Every structure is written in structure tokens, then in C-alpha cells.
């Protein structure tokens, strides 16, 4: 799937500062039975969001009308556990374009980038400032500037730079995905296969 282009985003945020938010919480396994990529947002954080009869828990942040926006803020080790890309799809499908955390699980980070969901890793102190500011004023606007790799609080001007590989940055700004890159490399891949002499029996499986 080609991904949506990302450049600069200004938005309010939804803070969910729990640590170790695993992909089973983001999208429980029983909702992984679809064969398309759409519709997972409906069950995002399903068991934290709704009771078993489907009534919303009023205390859960996604059910709090004070908070909305395209930026989700999570605690440390966000997206740990299962490799299900459905977790990134669910967050994106719900309407988020960015996830902020002080620390992302590896597979989730790759999955997010491949979905067009930007993971922004900030320092612990920046995360704390962000959460305090948003706690006081849910209307706080945060600006994510991908070309300059900068996250800032629009009102106060507090800002920080974030890391992203220049390759992935280009992909997101231009809406390219890895498959575009790889299929243009076919010749090189075939050369590699031919030249791997020590792996004689590897070309066909069985």
C-alpha cells in the first residue's frame, strides 16, 4: 500500500501515558480476523474503551470529549509484544497520524512507518512537559515538523528535535513505501542470488 504523504502537522493531542502499552491492548487478537486493512480503528483499545456490553468507560481518554486530535501520546515501551501491524493500522484508522513516546518497541516502530503513522521519540523530560501542559490545557497545539525533525508546543515555543532515518523521512514526505524501493532493485537481488555460491541448495525450497 502506498502511504499518505506527511510533512507538517499541527494538532491537539490525546494523552495515554501508561507504560508498556502492548499491541494486545491496542488491538486485541480477537479483532485480527479481517482480511483487509480497514476498519480496525473501531476496535482500537477495545477493552480499555468499552465494557463487555459495548458501553464506553467514561474515564478512558478516548471517551473524554475534552481530548481529541491527530496525535496520540503514549508512555515508555509503546507497542511492545506481538508484531501485528494491525496495531498501527488501528491507530491510523482511528484518525491518528503521529504517536509520541519516550521509547518505542522495534517492530511497532517499523510497522508504524510502513503504515504512514509517524512515531516521534522524545526525551523523558520533554514527554513530561508535554503531558503536564496538555493536562492543564487539552487544547494545547503541538506541531510536528518532519522536514526539520522538530516537535514543538506552538504556544510556548518549547521544542525538541527527533530522530528518523533519512531514508524513512524521504519515504514519508514523498509517500513512497519500501516495496517501491525493493522492486526497483530486482536486478541486484537476482545478482545476489547468482553470486551466493556457498548457498548452493538455497534457491528452491523443497
Amino acid at each position, binding site marked *: 500500500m502506498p502511504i499518505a504523504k506527511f510533512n507538517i502537522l499541527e494538532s491537539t493531542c490525546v494523552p495515554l*501515558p*501508561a*507504560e*508498556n502499552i*502492548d499491541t*494486545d*491492548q491496542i488491538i*486485541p*487478537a*480477537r479483532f*485480527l*480476523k*479481517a*482480511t*483487509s*486493512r480497514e476498519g480496525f480503528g473501531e476496535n482500537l483499545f477495545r*477493552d480499555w474503551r468499552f465494557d*463487555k456490553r459495548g458501553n464506553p468507560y467514561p474515564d478512558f481518554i478516548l471517551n473524554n470529549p475534552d481530548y481529541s486530535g491527530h496525535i496520540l501520546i503514549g508512555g*515508555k*515501551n509503546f507497542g*511492545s*509484544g*506481538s*508484531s*501485528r*501491524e*494491525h496495531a498501527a493500522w488501528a491507530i491510523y484508522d482511528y484518525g491518528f497520524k503521529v504517536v509520541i513516546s519516550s*521509547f*518505542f*518497541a*522495534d*517492530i511497532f516502530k*517499523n*510497522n508504524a512507518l*510502513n*503504515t504512514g503513522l509517524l512515531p516521534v521519540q522524545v526525551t523523558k523530560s520533554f514527554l513530561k512537559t508535554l503531558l503536564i501542559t496538555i493536562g492543564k490545557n487539552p487544547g494545547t497545539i503541538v506541531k510536528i515538523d518532519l522536514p526539520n525533525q522538530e516537535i514543538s508546543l506552538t504556544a510556548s515555543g518549547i521544542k525538541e528535535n527527533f530522530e528518523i*532515518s*533519512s*531514508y524513512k523521512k524521504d519515504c514519508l514526505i514523498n509517500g513512497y*513505501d*519500501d*516495496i517501491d524501493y*525493493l*522492486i526497483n*532493485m*530486482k536486478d*541486484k*537481488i537476482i545478482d*545476489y*542470488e547468482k553470486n*551466493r555460491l*556457498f*548457498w*548452493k*541448495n*538455497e*534457491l*528452491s*525450497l*523443497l
Partner: protein
Amino acid sequence: METKTLFDKIWDAHVVSSVENGPDVLYIDRHLIHEVTSPQAFAGLRERDLPVFRPGKIIATADHNIPTENQHLPIRDKLSKQQVDKLIENCREHNIILYGLNHPFNGIIHVIGPELGITQPGRTIVCGDSHTSTHGAFGCIAFGIGTSEVEMVMASQCVLQPKPKKMRISIEGLLKNGVSSKDVILYIISKISAGGATGYFIEYAGSAIRNMSMEGRMTICNMSIEMGARGGMIAPDKTTFEYLKGRKFAPKGEDLNKSLNRWKTLYSDENARFDKELYFKAEDIEPMITYGTNPGMGMKITDQIPNIEDIEENNRESFKKSMEYMNFSPGSSLINHPIDYVFVGSCTNGRIEDLRVFTSFVKGKQKSKNVTAWIVPGSKQVEKQAKAEGLDAILHKAGFELRQPGCSACLAMNEDKVPEGKYSVSTSNRNFEGRQGPGARTLLAGPLVAAASAVTGKITDPSSFGSDTPSGLKPLGG
């Protein structure tokens, strides 16, 4: 000469090229797929009008969604059936080998790869499943990927990956009697935390690892992801080569000799540099159990749950939340806490050795009436062997039934769901909230703790039954 780690040797041999300031293009030798994370990848190829580039390097199975009883009947759950049918359709269209439901090679993807000899030293293996790390036990680079990456590998047999940092974890010494590889890995995760190895690929080393069977090594590598690691691996040795000999897709005759020569070069050079090294002593490890809602929240089974003051300030909120979820009190012991379910199975502990350990412990004893037990072999071949060894009969006498293979209650995508509020001692890999069913409370442990607890109906230290604890390495002999 340049010194290299085991990881470097394999990784570097698979780099087709490198993206400037970006990831490596890594060639993949074997791609394992299953019904849950593949349909969108096939659909993606179709949308782009791309063929599967190397169908002969893909192996498919249905495991996540399938029932573990009455497998001869059509799957009742409509959506599960649809996913399994889609896999059949996709594999047929693209000429991919599928060991589907009822095939004699069907089973959990991470159990069948090794038992069929598809998993071999030096290979790169990926699968849309985080527990792909299991295969690292054979000295290969194996890691879980997302569905976009599954599509990438189908399209190009390559995946774009940044090279991870390297960590070595050495465990020296002899394990105490009754301490299994599951206890070893739960112990390590409890020391490192659920995110402590993020960004790293782990090599496990040391005499305690070398003394383990392949099954034990697979359990260790399997749970590497539970501390955030990209994967885990163990240098192949005689144990590895012996295990592979004669397996369906393992090399034979002259090919085997050639392979052995190559496999014997797969170890970390003496002065190879790791980004991080950790050391543990085997004798410090005892039977473990988890008390919280991530696999890092584990302790010796006879210990007390930490008090809130013992928890790092940043983690206190999530600690409190997990205590609430589990309905446990900080500072309390779990010994004799009543349980409702026991689950033995999964890609962590669903192999023949695990069934032998469990069965030899419950032999001549009786399952507690309060406990519902699911004993689920990891594959059709494990099931067949268990029956050939008479384990099913011993289990039956003790009040247990051997079910049919699948992922089952590990992630509860099929009917095997632990009900809300119930406690399950599980040999699987994750104790996340709702992992085994909405509201289910999971306590992770090894097969021996599961056996002792299944018999008493309470959380039980197996050594309280005396010191005669089975190793599981040998068949029971009826």
C-alpha cells in the same frame, strides 16, 4: 583478521545492498506465513499487480485461528474460517506450499519449521509473528515482521532492516534440578524488564545454554521478544546438528557434509565485540512465575510480589494497574493461590519435551477438580509422537486430555478463551491484559509448575512434591 559475532557473520552474508543513511536490504532465505498476518500482504501484491517473487522459499500453515478439537469438522467461527480459506486460496494461486488444517505437518509455524528441518543454521528467516525469534535456537537470524514487510518479502525476497545492536547474555553453570529453560528465560526477562533489550539482537551463550536440548534452546530464543529484543540466537553445535539429521528438509548425504562444514563456522569469534554483555549464574535460577501483566513481572515462585516502594517510580502507575487487574496485593506470596485454568502449549512450550515433563509429573496423580486444563501439542507431529509414547493414555488416567494442535489459548483467537477474572497458569509467552481472553488473568510458568498447579488446583512449587523432577529429555516409556 576482522573478528565477527555470529550475528554479523550471518547478517553480512545476506546484505544485498545498503540504503544510504538508511536500512540494509537483507536477503531472506525462508519466509514463514500464516492465516492472520498474510491476507493483506497478498491483497497488496494483487493491487500492485506483482507476482510472488520466490514462492519456493515460502512455507505456510494455519495455526492462529484453528480449533483444537474436532479439526475434521468445518471451522465454526465464520471469520476464522474465512481467514483460513483465504490462506488456502492465496497459496494455491501463488504456488506456495501449505501445511493446512489436518495435514500431517500442520502445526504452530515455529514448531513445524524446526521439526521439518526448514530451520537451519546460517539462514535468515522471517514471519509475520513476533515469536519467529524461536528459530534463532539453530544459529540463524530469525525475526518477526509486520504485514507490510511480509508483502515486501513476497515481492522481492528481501526486507529493509536497520542493523540492530548486539547483546550477549551468558549463563554459566549447572541448572538446579527442576529448573527448566522457561524458568531461565523468565528469570532473565525479570532482570532486564519487558523493554530492556529493545534495539538489540541477543546471542545466548554459556555452559547452561550449551547443555540445553534444542527444545530448551527454542524456549529461550522464543521469548527474546518479551524483553523487546529483535531476536535471539544460539551458536549451532553438535546438539543442533544431531537434531537436524534426517529431518524432512534437512540436507542429506554429501549435501549434509557440505552444510556441516559451513555450519561449523557459525560462532562468535573470540574477541568479537558486543554492544552489551550480561552474565547470569545458573545456580541463582529457580522455578519462576509471573505476577503481573507483562513478562518482565516475574519472580521465583516462592518469592513475594514486590511492594510498591520496591518499584521504580516511573513504573508505579502501571504496577498498581496490573495489581488491580490481577487482583493481587503487593508484598503477598502466590503459593497456594487458587487457579482455574492450566494451559500447556504454544510455540514457547508446546514441543514433545514439554509434554513429557508435564506428563511424567502428573503420572499417577489426579488433576484438581477445580481446574480446566488445555494440553495442546504444538504440531501434528508432536501430537503423533506423544501418542506413540503413550502420553495421551497417561494424561487421560490423570484426568487430562490431549487436544489437537494450534496456537490455542496463547492468544485466544479460537474458542480456547480463559473467562473473565479467572486465573490461568500458562506455559505460553504473554501475560498481557486480556491476552488469553477478555479479563483473563495469566500467570506464566514452565511446564513443571503448570503440572504441579494443575494437580493441586493452586499455585504450587513443584519441588514441594519432592526432588524427583523429570527432565523431559527421554521418552517416558509407557
